[in-house]
C-alpha cells in the first residue's frame, strides 16, 4: 500500500466510506455518487459479495464499470450480476423487516441530530428560493436501516444548526424515543457523517453529533471552523490514513476513467 499525495475531496470521501464496508453486513444506497461508488470500491477491494440494495429493485449487483451518467440505478450495467431483480416495494419490505444494516445517503444540509435536507433552501415550502429533487428513497432508508451513514462536504452551509427543511429524519429533537413516537422502528438512526475532512458519530445518550476522526492534513480547529454549530468532540480524535495509490487507481481507471464522479471537489495535495 503506497500512500498517495494528490486526490480529490470526492475520492477521499469514497475511500473512507469504502474502508468502513463489511462484507457480512447489508447496505442500501443510491447506485451512484459517493455512496454507490464506496460500495463498489469495497467490492473491488475487500468485500466482493457484500449484500447491497438499490431502491428500483436490485439486490447485490456487481456493477459493470464504467457507467454512463443517469444510468446508476436500473441500468443493465448497474444491475449486472445481481441475485434478485424485484420491485421497489419489495426492497422496502425487506428494509422494514430489518434486513438492512446500513443506509448510505447524500445530504444537502445536516443538523446536530442528523436530521437532513434534500428538498429546498430559502423561502418557505410553497415559495422556495431553490428547490431540489426531494426525498427520493432517502426518507425510508434513513427511517428503516439500523444505521445511517450520511455524506456531505465539510462546509458551514452543510453542517447547520437548523435545516431549511427536514426531508428525512435523524434523531429529530434528540429526546429519548423521539423516532419511535414518530412511527419509526426502535434502535435505528444516524451513525456516522463522512466527508473528506472528518468523520462524526453521535453521542449515545444525547444523540448530538460528535467529532470522532480527522484527516491527516487538517486540524480539529479547522474542521470546526467549517461548521455552523459546535459538535461534541471525542476524548481522543483519531487521525485517518490518507488514500492509497491502490484505492485511487481502481477509482480512476476501472470505475470512472472520465472522472465525472471521482474528479469532483477540490484537489488535496500533500507535501
Amino acid at each position: 500500500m503506497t500512500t498517495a499525495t494528490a486526490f480529490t475531496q470526492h475520492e477521499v470521501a469514497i475511500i473512507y466510506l469504502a474502508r468502513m464496508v463489511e462484507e457480512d453486513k447489508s447496505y442500501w444506497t443510491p447506485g451512484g455518487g459517493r455512496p454507490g461508488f464506496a460500495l463498489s470500491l469495497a467490492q473491488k477491494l475487500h468485500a466482493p459479495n457484500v449484500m447491497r440494495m438499490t431502491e428500483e429493485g436490485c439486490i447485490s449487483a456487481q456493477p459493470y464499470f464504467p457507467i454512463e451518467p443517469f444510468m446508476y440505478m436500473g441500468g443493465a450495467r448497474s444491475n449486472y450480476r445481481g441475485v434478485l431483480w424485484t420491485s421497489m416495494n419489495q426492497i422496502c419490505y425487506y428494509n422494514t423487516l430489518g434486513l438492512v444494516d446500513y443506509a448510505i445517503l447524500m445530504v444537502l444540509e445536516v443538523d446536530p441530530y442528523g436530521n437532513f435536507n434534500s428538498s429546498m433552501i430559502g423561502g418557505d415550502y410553497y415559495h422556495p428560493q431553490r428547490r431540489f429533487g426531494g426525498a427520493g428513497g432517502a426518507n425510508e432508508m434513513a427511517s428503516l436501516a439500523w444505521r445511517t451513514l450520511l455524506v456531505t462536504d465539510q462546509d458551514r452551509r452543510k453542517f447547520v444548526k437548523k435545516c431549511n427543511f427536514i426531508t428525512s429524519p435523524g434523531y429529530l429533537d434528540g429526546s429519548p424515543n423521539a423516532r419511535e413516537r414518530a412511527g419509526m422502528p426502535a434502535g435505528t438512526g444516524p451513525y456516522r457523517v463522512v466527508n473528506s475532512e472528518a468523520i462524526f458519530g453521535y453521542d449515545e445518550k444525547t444523540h448530538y453529533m460528535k467529532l470522532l476522526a480527522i484527516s491527516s492534513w487538517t486540524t480539529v480547529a479547522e474542521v470546526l471552523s467549517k461548521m455552523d454549530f459546535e459538535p461534541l468532540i471525542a476524548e481522543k480524535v483519531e487521525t485517518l490514513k490518507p488514500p492509497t495509490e491502490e484505492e485511487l487507481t481502481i477509482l480512476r481507471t476501472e470505475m470512472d476513467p472520465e472522472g465525472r464522479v471521482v474528479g469532483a471537489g477540490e484537489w488535496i495535495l500533500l507535501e
Partner: protein
Amino acid sequence: MEVIESGEGELFKAPDPDGFRAYVREHKARGLIDKVMTEKEAVAKFVADGDYLAYDLCWAIRGPNSLLREIIRQRKKNLGICGKFTYLGIAVLAGGECFNRVDFGYVGITVPYVEAIREGNIRISEWSNNALTMRLQAGAMGIPFLPVRYLGGADAFHYSGAKLVKDPFTAKSVVLLPALNPDVGLIHVHQADIYGNARVFGSLLSAHEVASASRKVIISSEEIIDHEEIRREPGRTTIPHFLVDAVVEAPFGSYPGEMPGLYTSDSAHLGEIAAASLKGMEPIKEYIQKYILDTESELDFLESKVGLGRLLELKGNANIKEGYR
C-alpha cells in the same frame, strides 16, 4: 383509531376504493381484445386534460418516453404527476407546460418549474419514492390506506397528506399512507402481446402496481410477441391483459433513455435535455419545438431527429444480455 398528527399537504387523488371498484367493473375488459394502436391514437383516446398521470421509470431507464413525447405533441394540459424517480422526463413535460400539480418523490428539478412552483402555478405535495409506490400498492389492492414505518417526524410528513396514528394492535405510532389510483398509467415494457399481456425484464420498479392502480393503462412495448409465447411461459408475465387499455408497438420507445438488455442511453441527447432544463424555460421550449413539436409522429422523430445509424450504435452498445431474454 387515534390520529396523532395529520399532514397538511394536498391530496390530489383522495382514496376511493368503491369508486375504483365500480370503474373496474365497468371498464376493464376481461376478454381478449386486440388493443394495438399508435402512440397518437392511445394518447388521444386515453389521456385527457386534467388527468393524474403515473409513469414507471427509473431516471431515464425503461421510461415510456415515446408516450410522453406524444402527450407533449398533443398539448395535453393540467396533468397531475406522480413524481417518483422522474428526472429528465418531467423537465420535458414542464417545457410542454403539461402539468399543474406534482406529488414529490424524486423529481428532477429544473429552472422552468421552480419558478412555476414559487408563483403557485404548480401545486406540490411532499412524499418519497416509496411512499408513492406504497400509495400505488394500496390503490392496487383496492384498500383505502397502508401503514408504513417511515415519513413520520420529518417536515416531509407535514407537507404530505399522510397521517400518524396509534396502531390499535401494538399501541405504537405508525404512519398511514392514502391509496393512490391515478387516472392514467404509462408503462414501457420489453414484450407484450396484442391483448396487453406484458413482460418486463430487469428491476421492476412499480410496473405492476401502476398497472393495477390506474384507471386507464397504456403499455408501450419494444416488441409485440405472439400470444402463444405468453401461454407457453405464464410465469414471465409481469402485467396481465385485463389491466391494460392500449398496446403501442414502440421500438426504441425509451430513447433517449436505456432499455436494459436492448439498447443503451444516448447520453449526449440526455445531456442536451439536462443542459436546456438548467438554463430555463426558453431553452427547454426550443428543445421541445425541435425534437417533438416539429415531428409529427414517433417514427418521424426516430427517423429525422435520431437516425438509423445512431439507433443501431446504441443497440450495439448494449453489451449485457444476461437476464433480459
